[in-house]
């Protein structure tokens, strides 16, 4: 006699994913990545009034949620309400997976999995989500960095202009003077420029 393993419906079909993320851009990137990896993104939400209704309607197997979404606490309650189905449960540190979970929380993402779904099936999906959240984080930091360096360059330009105007220096001389002050004081060029501008403002 052949005994068929007890396979749940959710184990043979593609996993249905619900994305909840206030960042529309990030959600779009993640949606694409999940689709490429063979998952069905059933819906993307940026934040909803009645999450219970949405989860009941969409019936996801996995909910990927931005860690900063306050909706997490609403999901926590769903496992308590017996008449509501399905029952998503937060994915959390069963010893072998605690590293994945730590990575996820650090990247700013959390997952809720419908009761009974094996952690093995969710892990690759989580890895996609973690990678995309991290990538997005890196992009944002890069953008922030670019903004800061642009602002700093403007300060240096202004300080140079001031030195040229007041001291009759050439552009090259003004730049060298700034650089010397920075090196002598062990400070960043932008800081020196900012100081010069501040002092000039007081003197005027």
């Amino acid at each position, binding site marked *: 006699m052949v005994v068929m393993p007890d396979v749940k419906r959710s184990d043979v079909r593609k996993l249905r994913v619900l994305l909840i993320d206030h960042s529309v851009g990030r959600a779009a990137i993640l949606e694409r990545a999940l689709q490429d990896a063979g998952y069905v993104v059933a819906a993307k939400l940026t934040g909803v*009034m*009645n999450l*219970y209704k949405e989860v009941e309607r969409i019936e996801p197997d996995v909910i990927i949620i931005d*860690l*900063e*979404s*306050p*909706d*997490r*606490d*609403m*999901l*926590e*309650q769903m*496992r*308590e*309400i017996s008449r509501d189905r399905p029952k998503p*449960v*937060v994915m*959390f*540190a069963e010893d072998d997976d*605690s590293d994945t*979970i*730590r990575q996820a*929380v*650090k990247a700013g993402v*959390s997952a809720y999995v419908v009761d009974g779904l094996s952690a093995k099936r969710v892990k690759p999906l989580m890895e996609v989500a973690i990678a995309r959240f991290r990538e997005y984080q890196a992009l944002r930091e890069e953008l922030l960095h670019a903004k800061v360096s642009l602002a700093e360059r403007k300060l240096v330009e202004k300080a140079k202009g001031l030195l040229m105007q007041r001291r009759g220096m050439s552009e090259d001389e003004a730049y060298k003077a700034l650089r010397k002050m920075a090196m002598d004081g062990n400070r960043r060029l932008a800081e020196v420029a900012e100081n010069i501008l501040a002092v000039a403002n007081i003197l005027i």
Partner: protein
Amino acid sequence: MTVVLKQDLEKPQLTLGFVPLTDCAPLVIAQEKGIFRRYGLEVTLSKETSWANIRDKVALGILDGAQMLAPMVLGMSCGVGPVKKAMVTALSLDLNGNAITVSNALYAIMQACAPHDAPLPNRSAHVLKQVIDARRNNGEKPLSFATVFPTATHTYELRYWMASAGINPDRDVRLVVVPPPQMRAHLESGDVDGFCVGEPWNAAVVHAGIGRTLITKYELWNNSPEKVLGVTREWAEQYPHTHRALLMALLEAARWLDQPNCRREAAALIACGRYVQAPEEIVAMSMNGAYRYAFDEVPRDLPDFNVFHRYAANFPWRSHAIWFLTQMVRWRQLRGQVNFRRIAETVYRPDLFRDAAALLGIPAPGVDYKTEGEHAAPWLFDSRITLGSDLFIDGRTFNPDDPIGYLAGIVPVAGRSNVVPLVRR
């Protein structure tokens, strides 16, 4: 005075989590008044958007500790909820501070139903029961009530209040969870008919004239425990001196908060964007010893609406832990054999509190358990510590030596057999 030596601190840089609620005050005061720094601690306060985040980040060690719901540390330790982690608390952050508020629409029905009783806090649940019965007879859908987390003090308070009037919270109403800053929108949209939440979110709804407070947590159970400082047991064992310095700093901050005339300044400090992010006058509403139940009413005197230090408020009573555990059993979150005393003794650590309090010269109770429901006014404990009144709304008493007897004595709510699980002390 004995000082904490900086070189004793195993981990001087800490990140502590908090949720934007008025009772994050001890953390904010310790930070803003430089108290943490005086104890050699360099603290970053991390605002968290959900209780689930607080739980996960503390359990994973991403946060060193956090403002936590008292039953949350117990739930995590004994496996109520999805995340199991051995937790410790040695400090209660405050007493009281929550309230139950309903929409104007629901209150109007309650008033029509029982004009005399509707505004009385101790009759409010009975009036709600009449409304619920009438709605059931008319075939209307059940009312929805929100709390903030499955193992929140608010959940047990709302359930206790309902059950005290014979309402079965599992059958007669629909209970949901809504994040505190969203309570107002859910009430306005009619998604929920009422909620139990901490401040300033009741005050915000009352101030906007869209809801009415029926009863405060103080009136439900005088001077009942609310938030705690929660850390993992691992953390407490690894950083004992740091933990003690943290307890001392927070104890000092809590003591500052209960000095006369400090609440205004406290309200201004916690209202800002980095912390609660709500208008200062709304935050101040619940901090000044009076409480406004309705938009068109003058505030009533309620000096103990929130208590941060007096009445030994910061002492982690193991009897409080046992009471929360009885509620988890009562509402079937906690099943099977429950060793009440063992859980209370591993999670609640009055011994650590006493060490910290002694260094500050703050008197601490010499025992870990006390009965509840026997004092209608402040009373002298151990002939040296003033404790607050401790009455329950239904006049019951709670003896921590006999949680099973207490559970057995709770009148079964309609439609449920009074199941007393197999429990032992």
